């Protein structure tokens, strides 16, 4: 991270080029149908940055795309899930085919690993996962980030110790940021704040860049202070087809389209990647291929009715 009050605004292309290296551990923000940084996930696919480990809680299509493009060889998460729209099919297939190592945790376990990272403490205890195969039946290929220990104040009482997790870089979508990286996430934050603070680098995509003066006038809204942030990308609709609270609903039609390609895999999935990502210059071009003004306005209207 950078401690400087500098202007960190750049394009997604520049940010990914500068901060996402081959072999990185990449933190994935958002959950299921909400507030995933699709613009940054697309850019990772576009640049073909490989051998990634993707970490998060409930990882959605942003993770699935990177896995589907063959760029990840490990995930650590609680679930791959798009709820109403099914599981994350590229991820599922990669695991079933032995192409991806999945380190399985409960959601709180992942959340606490990030919390520990954000506080600079080496590990953190939890009382979840006890008695289950989340502790017993773990992949042999993985590093051992879980230890079963004893509560020093309650002898013979087992407690699970989780190793802190500090991603090399996290990609997070937010509603607002100023150009130095003071970030405002509105609505649920899931694990994003702790993950950002735990990360060595943070790239923020946001709907809108606001003046630092606006941050300072209403500082109770700031969820991630600039200290943790390295790059700020202004990308309206940057979470599409997932939703962005107060801005737009998720796009069910595009979700279903993606899911049908991901479920089928093979050529159909490659066509999706080629048409929408590899074949587009940037996220705006993707948006114009994937949707149209009328439908986007409807997604905005639909959100306005809910907040």
């Amino acid at each position: 991270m950078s401690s400087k009050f500098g202007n960190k605004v750049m394009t997604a292309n520049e940010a990914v080029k500068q901060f996402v290296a081959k072999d990185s551990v990449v933190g994935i923000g958002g959950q299921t149908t909400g507030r995933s940084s699709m613009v940054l996930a697309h850019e990772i696919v576009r640049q073909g940055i490989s051998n990634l480990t993707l970490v998060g809680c409930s990882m959605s299509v942003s993770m699935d795309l990177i896995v589907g493009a063959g760029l990840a060889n490990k995930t650590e998460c609680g679930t791959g899930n798009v709820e109403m729209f099914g599981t994350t099919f590229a991820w599922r297939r990669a695991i079933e085919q032995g192409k991806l190592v999945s380190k399985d945790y409960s959601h709180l376990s992942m959340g606490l690993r990030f919390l520990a990272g954000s506080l600079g403490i080496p590990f953190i205890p939890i009382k979840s996962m006890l008695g289950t195969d989340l502790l017993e039946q773990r992949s042999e290929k993985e590093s051992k980030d879980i230890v079963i220990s004893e509560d020093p104040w309650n002898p013979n009482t087992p407690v699970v110790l989780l190793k802190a997790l500090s991603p090399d870089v996290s990609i997070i979508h937010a509603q607002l940021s100023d150009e130095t990286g003071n970030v405002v996430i509105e609505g649920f934050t899931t694990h994003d704040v702790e993950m950002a603070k735990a990360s060595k680098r943070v790239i923020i995509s946001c709907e809108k860049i606001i003046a630092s003066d606006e941050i300072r006038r209403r500082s109770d809204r700031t969820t991630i202070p600039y200290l943790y942030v390295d790059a700020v990308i202004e990308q309206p609709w940057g979470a599409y087809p997932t939703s962005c609270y107060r801005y737009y609903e998720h796009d069910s039609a595009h979700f279903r389209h993606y899911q049908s390609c991901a479920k089928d895999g093979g050529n159909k999935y490659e066509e999706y990647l080629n048409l929408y990502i590899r074949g587009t210059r940037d996220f705006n071009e993707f948006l114009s291929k994937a949707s149209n003004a009328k439908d986007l306005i409807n997604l905005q209207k639909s959100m306005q009715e809910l907040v």
Partner: protein
Amino acid sequence: MNLFTLDELMVIEASRYITNGDVVMVGTGLPMVASLLALKSHAPDMCYVVETGPVAPDVIPTPTSVADARVMHRSVTNGSLIGALGGILHRGLADVGFIGGAQIDQFANVNSTVIGNYSNPKVRLPGSGGANDIASHAKKILIITRHELRRFPLYCDYITSPGYIDGPEGRKNAGIPVPYPDIHVVTNLSVMSINKTSGKLTLSKLMPGISKETVLSNTSFNPDSGIPLQEVAPASEQELKTLRDEVDPKGIYIKRV
């Protein structure tokens, strides 16, 4: 008598296990439907908690996910995953938690991770999500699922979320903070509940018109304790109306008759 489907009665029956004032950890899908029904009928002071963070929202029907703006509507806070699963659930404040999964075994252990071998899976499932946390820390665990033989094996291929593990003291021996929770599995055929003496799921109610034999032939283990079985109370007019008009008006989760 009101006309209703067993799918409808399944979620209605599940909602009856929620008491007014309960703090309820809810994911998405049928648990959301059952919780909303309780909230909008007999449990108006229920506290609906979503793992993404929101606490006590006035949920707008019908959310499609835990990230949906409909579960943030007029919440008292939209919070964080650690606030919800840590500060409320792990902290011991959750009265009720819903989980789901592909397999539920005789000890009410749940598998939502893998069919087949973990290292060489036949079908990879989504994984725990918050389910393991909920099953470890909620005082009462509710499971809603359609009653099919493959869903009720003797043993799970993989235990994602703990039931009673391997017997009445299984949770205690493993060090799980809530050693003896109530667990109810509500299906379209029956209700099975944990017998705390055996640590096993035991048939307690049958859905109207369903025979014990039908349940047993759709269950790999034997949940029959031999005691006489109640019938699940039929859906009241109010319950049906609330479910159909207020909770799932578009029939997204529960198909109409």
